[in-house]
């Protein structure tokens, strides 16, 4: 047995981050990547802010020609896209990736390499957005990209920059979401049951699931639009039976949850800050939890309230009014819980708390204007006017950026180990708060007085100059607030007072580790027996239940990166998860992803083809298990001393959960395609369009039969894995792979023999793309099966649990394939015949 300092040193050596160049490209640790996410997002925030200030200068006086229409339109497009896609969500994801392991008692997030990949893809996507400035083709279609303005008939390569940059950022968002959800479900400290989650973590769990669904739908929409633009499909082409409101439905099905994807983690921050400075636990924890869940759920039923002026049926709009009003209740619950927590506690008004109070003031105001515009008649007046601009800046700056600033002031001492400067903090708060209100309050009135959104100038006769001059002055003050915050951050990095572990005397686990925390975060895994681990003494029975295990795991495993896995609800220890060390594969995978996007952008499809090939090779290298390493893990001493598996399978394995995440992503993306099919059909006078014949059933029916057989086999593969059955497993895998390839073959034959082209009309586009999507699913299952067969046949020294996990993944993926192929068959082949 080694001494603690000795163990500490060895643990630190194992978790040592990569240094120098090109080492930084290989880094995978959540703390490093989390900080990279936040810094990059903050840079984009500053750029987006500069764009906003330029727009404010243009709007200060009527009929100004400082920017002119084209530049102004580019700036508001980039401002919106930057703030929504490149700042708010990535920043919160970065904060989550950094804090999650610390708050729940783990050493890293579930998929460190995926984190790194997500960061690179996000960075590349953001750069792609801004390269458009160098190319002289800046997107000018608004952050919402409404068709038909965004189709190739009206816009050129600038829109491709937007769509492809956006796609990359969506991929990054999806990877971060899988990461967040699986980490929260599997890496919690022993005893941290779902009911003991810090509220920030709970909000991230809900948001993670929301991203999985919402971003997938947006990804489908952007891919459909890019297919229209690059490959001449007809989803949104009105002359070929496409539909124009379909884009709005898909976009806002993402777009409204997006607002809550930003807002919920922000309320999570508030729910951490208020109890700390009130020095008492949050009141109504359960109510807040219910409110978060309700918000997440209802947010998917609101999207039509962005379309109240589009001429939809009254009854449909009433439903969406009711749903929009309902979400106000969820926000109300949270507000009153915070008030109840602060009540009579004389909270310390430090900078994070000031930003929190600023948040309450602004968010209540913005929330109330939100209630107003949920009402159809009122919205039909103020929709797309400066009233809306005012409303959503109150909600997004007041409701998201103020909490983010509060969080920056709250957690920077943990991240940098140094305290910020109070007087700079107060100055920054008052400058931001007053500047914000001066900028955006007058905009409510401007909307009433007839100023629509997205106009580069306005007639003198509207007499709006007084308001605009006030707004521009306020914007300068607001910018000053952000600069003061930045100055404070930079100054404190060098000159700040040493913070210590827990400068605020807060209750959650991240304050129990050093500031800045070591890369492995926890030397000894904490045991949690209440919602406020640092405020309450542990109950003896719970701590004794786990203390032996946690002692055995102190500083262990020391020669490989590993963390403790607990079960999803009760947080009982289940296994020890191996985590990868720095590695270049994520970086190169991201480069290949970028190259594929650039190939489509510059219409060099050969480049895209090679990039996709490179991407597949990277993924194989990434996923291919190292047999020696697996055996080393299987024989690890730790497994015997702790009695926990080092090669977890089934629900103890993070990979199992990530596969479910993958199924949700693919399922949602696919569901968006099916929705599009029926939506376009609903508005077509004839189906199939242009008098085309119904698709022939024979090949499709046979394909479906084959795939169902394959799925049946796949579901049985992992049932028992033993040396005797290896052969039957191998045959089973080959059978699944054969079924998948037969399915693909049959569909390809069907598509080529039907004599149609995907660019004929919207019907054929849907027919081809939905079928192709189901083939892609079959390809994934087939690839995993081939892979399993190779492993089973070629190498008999693989630990059984590794094989079992592999077969379990095939089994899970086959469920997806089952759903997708059934839906494909019934939608594309059966429904045109039946009705």
């Amino acid at each position, binding site marked *: 047995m080694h001494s603690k300092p000795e163990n500490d040193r060895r643990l630190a050596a194992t978790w040592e981050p990569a240094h120098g160049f090109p080492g930084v490209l290989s880094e995978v640790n959540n703390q490093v990547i989390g900080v990279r996410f936040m810094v990059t997002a903050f840079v984009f925030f500053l750029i987006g802010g500069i764009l906003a200030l330029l727009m404010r200068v243009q709007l200060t006086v009527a009929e100004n020609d400082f920017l002119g*229409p084209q530049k102004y339109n580019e700036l508001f497009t980039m401002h919106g896209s930057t703030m929504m896609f490149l700042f708010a969500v990535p920043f919160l994801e970065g904060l989550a990736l950094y804090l999650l392991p610390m708050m729940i008692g783990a050493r890293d997030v579930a998929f460190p390499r995926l984190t790194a990949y997500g960061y690179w893809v996000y960075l590349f996507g953001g750069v792609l957005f801004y390269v458009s400035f160098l190319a002289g083709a800046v997107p000018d279609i608004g952050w919402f990209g409404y068709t038909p303005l965004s189709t190739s008939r009206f816009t050129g390569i600038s829109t491709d920059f937007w769509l492809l940059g956006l796609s990359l950022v969506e991929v990054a968002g999806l990877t971060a979401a899988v990461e967040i959800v699986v980490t929260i479900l599997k890496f919690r400290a022993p005893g941290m049951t779902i009911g003991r989650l810090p509220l920030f973590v709970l909000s991230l769990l809900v948001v993670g699931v929301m991203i999985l669904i919402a971003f997938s739908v947006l990804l489908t929409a952007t891919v459909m639009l890019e297919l229209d633009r690059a490959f001449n499909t007809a989803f949104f082409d009105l002359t070929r039976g496409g539909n124009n409101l379909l884009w709005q439905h898909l976009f806002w099905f993402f777009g409204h949850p997006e607002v809550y994807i930003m807002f919920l983690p922000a309320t999570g921050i508030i729910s951490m800050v208020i109890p700390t400075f009130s020095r008492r636990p949050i009141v109504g924890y359960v109510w807040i939890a219910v409110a978060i869940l309700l918000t997440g759920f209802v947010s998917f039923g609101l999207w039509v309230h962005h379309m109240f002026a589009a*001429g939809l049926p009254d009854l449909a709009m009433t439903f969406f009014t009711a749903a929009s009003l309902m979400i106000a209740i969820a926000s109300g619950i949270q507000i*009153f819980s915070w008030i109840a927590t602060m009540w009579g506690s004389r*909270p310390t008004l430090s900078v994070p708390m*000031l930003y929190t*109070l600023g948040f309450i003031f602004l968010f209540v105001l913005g929330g109330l204007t939100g209630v107003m515009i949920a*009402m159809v*008649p009122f919205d039909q007046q103020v929709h797309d006017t400066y009233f809306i601009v005012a409303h959503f800046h109150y909600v997004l700056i007041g409701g998201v950026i103020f909490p983010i600033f509060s969080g920056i002031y709250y957690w920077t001492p943990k991240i940098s180990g140094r305290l910020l400067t109070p007087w700079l903090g107060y100055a920054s708060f008052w400058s931001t708060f007053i500047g914000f209100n001066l900028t955006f309050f007058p905009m409510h009135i401007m909307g009433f007085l007839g100023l629509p959104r997205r106009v580069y100038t306005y007639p003198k006769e509207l007499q709006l100059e007084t308001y605009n001059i006030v707004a521009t002055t306020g914007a300068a003050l607001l910018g000053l607030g952000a600069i003061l915050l930045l100055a404070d951050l930079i100054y404190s990095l060098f000159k700040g007072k040493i913070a210590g572990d827990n400068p605020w005397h807060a209750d959650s686990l991240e304050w129990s580790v050093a500031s800045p925390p070591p890369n492995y975060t926890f030397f000894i895994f904490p045991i949690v027996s209440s919602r406020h681990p640092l405020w309450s003494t542990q109950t003896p029975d719970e701590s004794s239940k786990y203390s032996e295990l946690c002692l055995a795991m102190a500083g262990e495993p020391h020669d490989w990166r590993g963390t403790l896995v607990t079960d999803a609800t009760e947080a009982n220890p289940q296994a020890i998860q191996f985590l990868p060390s720095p590695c270049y594969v994520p970086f190169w995978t991201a480069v290949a992803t970028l190259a594929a996007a650039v190939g489509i952008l510059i219409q060099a499809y050969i480049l895209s083809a090679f990039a996709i090939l490179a991407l597949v090779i990277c993924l194989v290298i990434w996923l291919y298990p190292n047999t020696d390493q697996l055996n080393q893990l299987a024989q690890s001493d730790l497994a015997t001393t702790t009695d926990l598996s080092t090669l977890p399978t089934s629900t103890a394995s993070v990979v199992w959960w990530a596969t479910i995440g993958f199924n949700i992503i693919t399922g949602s993306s696919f569901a968006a395609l099916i929705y599009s099919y029926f939506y376009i059909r609903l508005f077509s006078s004839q189906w199939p369009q242009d008098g085309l014949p119904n698709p022939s059933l024979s090949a499709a029916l046979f394909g479906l039969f084959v795939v169902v057989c394959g799925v049946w086999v796949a579901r049985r593969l992992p049932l028992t894995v033993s040396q005797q059955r290896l052969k039957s497993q191998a045959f089973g895998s080959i059978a699944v792979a054969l079924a998948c390839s037969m399915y693909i073959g049959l569909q390809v034959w069907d598509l080529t023999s039907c004599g149609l082209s995907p660019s004929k009309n919207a019907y054929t586009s849907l027919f081809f793309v939905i079928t192709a999507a189901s083939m892609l699913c079959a390809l994934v299952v087939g690839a995993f099966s081939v892979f399993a067969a190779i492993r089973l046949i070629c190498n008999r020294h693989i630990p059984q649990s590794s094989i079992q996990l592999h077969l379990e993944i095939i089994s899970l993926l086959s469920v997806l394939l089952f759903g997708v192929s059934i839906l494909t068959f019934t939608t594309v082949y059966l429904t045109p015949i039946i009705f």
Partner: protein
Amino acid sequence: MHVKMQKVYPLIILLIIAMSANLAGCHQSHNQSMLYPAGPAAAHIAWVWWFLFFVCTAIFLIVILLTAVAIWGPRSATRHESTLGNRFIIFSGIVIPGFILLALLVVSVRSQVVLGMPSTKLTVRVTGHMWWWEVEYPELGIVTANEIHIPVGQPIRIELISADVIHSLWVPNLQGKMDLLPDKINATWMLAEEQGIYRGQCAEYCGVQHAWMGLEVIAIPPERFNQWKQGRQKHSRVTLSQSERNGFDVFFKVACHNCHAIDGTSAVGVRGPNLTHLASRRTIGAGLLENNHGNLSGWVADPQTAKPGNLMPRTHINSTDLRSLVEYLETLK
């Protein structure tokens, strides 16, 4: 901190009052404002707004007051998980808002009914183009652009369609907005109770010159509307002077007729506004410039300076031709 807060809030309140005073200032024209309704639809929505304003202001003040008391009020024992704390949340976070929101839903639904399409005798078909409005009276056989003449006191059915991208018609003094979609006809209605000129503009971002896609609704008494109608139904063909006839030739020489139509001539272009009664319109460039000799000459010679990016190209004609062309256009009354 107390001192600072107490100084700042009155300042903000003062600012709000100052702005409201400005809002109420009577020297403004208010012909593009939803707060000065000139018809029943806008009046009803304005009523909804003031109702919402008072309800929401009351809620806002109460919540802020509660927050202030929570922070600065007397110190009290912890309410952690106390029944009192939970009751407070249930009562003020669920029960009271529940009743208020239910009331709002009722108001909203009732308003939707009130604002339903009335029976109308006259239809106006508005087609949105990048970046101007084509206005057609199908029953009367009149086509014009960027202005809608309506008789006071009569509800008018407005049918909306777009020729290219999505636009949105918004005349706030008369009615809420409605989108113009390229693949579906939307319908709304307007009724002006007072004679007047109400400005409107496109409210859905539609490309580079979205900002200057304005129009005017000109509400006139029924008898004057009849006169206007008769004036528009015949194309006024005065005898042209030599210079004006030259201008007529120039019109075709520089290919104006590719995009513009003038009824009674061989010019039948449809991409730009119909110019049959151009000279009687109040504005040019879709609400951009007052329609006078100087502005019209400047516009014809170089439409790209006044409205950069619009689809009318610069014409390269000499000043004599330009003068004749404008003289000819000014005969189109």
